[in-house]
């Protein structure tokens, strides 16, 4: 018996690539929309530099901005200027929410030490003992 083999249709297989640009555009827009940049303005400070500055990997970070106005300290937490005496309560609250809190101190390099000393005192009272002194990483000191 003779069989009739039907020759299969041979269409050149192709993937539609006209929509790639749309897909990539969509991806780009998606990333642009979803990336959230931290929008805490803090204070305008001139950060000190350090060679041994290391990256903090933890996500549990609270920022305390320390600046100065004459001999008076100016402290900002969550974009609010707070008196130094109030740091304890604020940090205590934050610590209750997140026990692994690391307090990052962003202090201006010209701040008199007495001000940062008071800030440390407040943090000790709030029992927030893990702190990081923010400093720009440099490879060489001038």
């Amino acid at each position: 018996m003779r069989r009739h083999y039907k020759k299969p249709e041979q269409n050149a297989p192709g993937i539609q690539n006209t929509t790639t640009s749309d897909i990539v555009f969509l991806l780009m827009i998606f990333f642009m929309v979803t990336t959230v940049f931290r929008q805490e303005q803090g204070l305008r400070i001139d950060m000190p530099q350090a060679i041994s500055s290391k990256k903090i990997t933890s996500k549990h970070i609270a920022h305390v901005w320390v600046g100065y106005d004459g001999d008076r300290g100016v402290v900002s937490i969550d974009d609010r200027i707070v008196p130094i005496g109030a740091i304890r309560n604020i940090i205590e609250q934050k610590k209750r929410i997140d026990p692994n809190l690391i307090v990052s101190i962003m202090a201006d390099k010209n701040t008199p030490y007495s001000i940062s000393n008071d800030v440390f005192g407040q943090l000790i009272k709030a029992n927030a003992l893990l702190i990081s002194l923010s400093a720009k990483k440099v490879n060489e000191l001038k």
Partner: protein
Amino acid sequence: MLIKKKSEDKASIPTASIGDITFLMLIFFLVTSSFSTEMGLQIVLPEESKETITMLSKNIVHVRINKFGDVRVEEEPIEWMKVSEKASEMLKKPNGDSLVFSIIPTRMAKYDYMIRVFDQLKIAFDKTQMKEKISLSPAEDDE
């Protein structure tokens, strides 16, 4: 007179490369956008406790900084950039591993001075690969 009919090419912009262009843009933004990374010197503050920890005073190295940024290690004046050398020297001595460095800035000393001495000490501890023992003391009054 013969009028030549203008040849009318259909104008079109090639669109095949748009995908590549947008990909390139995506990569460009990915590379250039810098996420604010937290850099800093970590330190653990002492606990607030009634009882004081007694330590042999010979194991404490006092590093004093005044408002001009002059550094003294155990009352001996030293250039701040040489603190790390001096500290690693001290750490390498016998019993060096029990040393604790105590930074004592005066009230008017700049924060920057404290940071750079702290940095120097950290470098010394990194070099000698010892457990960091640096403490920040309360500010002293200016002379």
